[in-house]
């Protein structure tokens, strides 16, 4: 089990992801509203 870095009540650090087109995008770019993030095990 990995050590959790962020717990409820704490700020999520800047995380960079990729769009389906392969462009880098910051998670914070989606925070113009409350954000529900579904982390899937994998796409498939």
């Amino acid at each position, binding site marked *: 089990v990995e*050590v959790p870095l962020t717990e409820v009540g704490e700020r999520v650090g800047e995380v960079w992801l990729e769009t389906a087109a392969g462009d880098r995008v910051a998670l914070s770019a989606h925070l113009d509203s409350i954000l529900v993030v579904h982390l899937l095990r994998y796409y498939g």
Partner: protein
Amino acid sequence: VPCLSFLSQLREAEPQIRALGASVVAVATGAHHQAQHLMDTGMPYPCLVDPDKALYRELGIGRIPLSQWLRPTTWRRYARTLGQARQGRITGDPLQAGGVAVIDTDGTLRYLHRSSTLADLPPLEEVLGTVADVAG
């Protein structure tokens, strides 16, 4: 399959989620073309890719341990989701655990469910309730 099943639940709840002033993104370790395929086939939310597992590490979501794979309850949960979503070719890390997070507009983590095994996902009502509380 369980992950896609939960994503379908989120899709069906889109009007309710939007009414609460919230939005959804999906994140996975799999291939970019599979993320695009989901969006091309009706997923109304951005499907993003996390090849380095940066967000998984940030939220402390690790891999599913072997002990969980061997538990009958794991496979009973998995079996319950069969038929709700079709399994495609597996890309990314099949051992990676999933989860659900709710993040406020200032970046504060308001809710986090770390899946401990296959099909370990929270009730949708629990997630929507948290969104309603944050929006409140």
